[in-house]
């Protein structure tokens, strides 16, 4: 007997009787729309994320000019076109990536970046610094609403990002910049 059949048969023999799938409640923060932006900012600030205005963005990015910049955001010039790259290893030297995020979640600061926004799956991770641009209109309350707003299988890969990469594996001391970006900057457009 194949292992698949073996496992499925054992499950059938051993599983409990039917239990209903509960219906999910409406978004608990749905009524507090006017607070979403403040909550979003506060939560992200707590996870060491900073904010930048749309107006300040181009000049900030120009500060990285002598390094490798990838930008897919209109009006923000980069110096490496991600579409011109075949092998993701060629992104190893990227210092700054400026990308769109599809939605932002007020309760935890998570932002959805799918493969279409990232161009290369590894880009939002391999870059030393990351800037995400998200529209105010694309904020939602909680993760319940977030999963209703996106289609997780629309692209082969998609990620919620809620801060710069971090670790606390050495004596619980928070260190920013574990393997991914050393900083995350968010531009609410």
């Amino acid at each position, binding site marked *: 007997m194949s292992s*698949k059949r073996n496992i499925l048969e054992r499950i059938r023999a051993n599983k409990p009787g039917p239990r209903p799938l509960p219906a999910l409640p409406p978004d608990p923060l749905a009524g507090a729309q006017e607070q979403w932006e403040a909550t979003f900012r506060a939560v992200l600030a707590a996870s060491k994320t900073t904010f930048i205005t749309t107006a300040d963005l181009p000049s900030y990015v120009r500060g990285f000019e002598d390094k490798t910049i990838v930008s897919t955001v209109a009006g923000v010039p980069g110096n490496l076109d991600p579409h011109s790259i075949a092998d993701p290893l060629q992104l190893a030297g990227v210092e700054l990536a400026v990308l769109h995020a599809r939605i932002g979640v007020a309760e935890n600061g998570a932002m959805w970046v799918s493969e279409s926004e990232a161009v290369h*799956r590894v880009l939002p991770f391999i870059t030393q610094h990351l800037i995400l641009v998200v529209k105010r209109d694309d904020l939602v309350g909680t993760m319940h609403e977030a999963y209703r707003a996106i289609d997780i299988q629309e692209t082969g*890969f998609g990620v919620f990002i809620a*801060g710069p990469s971090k670790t606390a594996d050495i004596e619980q001391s928070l260190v920013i910049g574990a*393997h991914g970006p050393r900083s995350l900057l968010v531009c609410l457009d």
Partner: protein
Amino acid sequence: MTHAERAADFLLDEARTDWHDESLWQVRGKRDTIVHAIPEWEALRQLGSDIKDNVLSNLDTYLEQFERQATANGVTVHWAKDAAEHNRIVHSILARHRVNRIVKSKSMLTEECHLNQYLKQQGIEVIDTDLGERIIQLRKEPPSHIVMPAIHLKKEEIGQLFYEQLGTDEGASDPQYLTEAARQHLREKFLAAKAAITGVNFAVAETGGIVVCTNEGNADMGVHLAPVQIHCMGIEKVIPQAEHLGVFTRLLGRSATGQPITIYTSHHHRPKEGGEMHVVIVDNGRTEQLGREEFRNSLKCIRCGACMNTCPIYRRSGGHSYDHTIPGPIGSILSPGIDLKKHGDLAFASTLCGSCSDVCPVKIDIHDQLYKWRQMVSEEGLLPKTKTIPLAGAGTVLSHNGLYNIMGKAARVALSHAPRVLVYNGMNPWGKTRELPEVPKESFKEWYARTHKSKF
């Protein structure tokens, strides 16, 4: 060696025990703060629990649906009935691609299957990339916690380890500096890896995708750079639909470390261009646990570690004292099902205070199950003599009123004259760290009869 004996070793260093205890209690505190900010928390736990109940009762159909969807997405799905088959499957994928070095992010399942050792024997080097896991891998130790694998180590020890193995400055122990050194060291490995392995937090039946949660971004660095990606999951990781991720992502980070969500919640549905994606679905004793009506709830676990952080025994005995891949309260209800003789004593590594059940985001009745395992251990005749002899004696005395009165009196007389060795000896571990209260001259019954005589 029993859990109590290994715990005794851990407790020899009192200052270190206190430090370990406090570190974990701090994480528990962070969890409390963030949980209290969610008014609907209890309802959310209930939802998590109910969804998982539904999963267990439809596990076969959800897994089949997952496989169908994943296959349609271009993912290769494998089934492994046990650890050995899991290891062979992973090895065969690697062998086909002639890969001799891989990067791996945290996966308790691969720990459970001892994949690292197996691959090493086949000549394949495994590099664990989660910082905590890398640390313990360099120290050739198992993880002591499922979320914070190196929580038992001091930064000075990690500094010394990195000095010896990664060439950092001698005596340096600043976490920032050490993390940076690990980042540089591991980035090289990521760039060179031809295959990457991750665990799975959730597999979505409806969409055929898998979700991996990390803070460091190590799983993604590995998976997106290596042409071959392999994700290993236990059968219980499947959930029905994408919208249920809303419930579990809200529960997981908050319960685990007191974060509103992990930094990265990555959804993998199709292989990258020119790449390969494999999912290995593993049983390894889970279907057996599913058949144990009283214990099947343990399969609802989302591996947040909250029950460890809150457990007064775990905090003061350390993860290694459990001698099982998953330590702490959840480990103590999973491991007796695997080997009752070897792990049965873990059912006693608890005060039955119930704190684990109180924090569990999917409402597993952990402490009730611990109690039930104790009964199983006793029924199977596996209780040590230090427990059976006194218990048999107590049973006789407690069931006979007259005997109880006599024994009480005898004890009061005897205890006030007995040499210490009678109480504080090897048969009575209770006496190791405790002093008996002063023995009263009369029993409550006698006192009541004397002082309330007139009323009778």
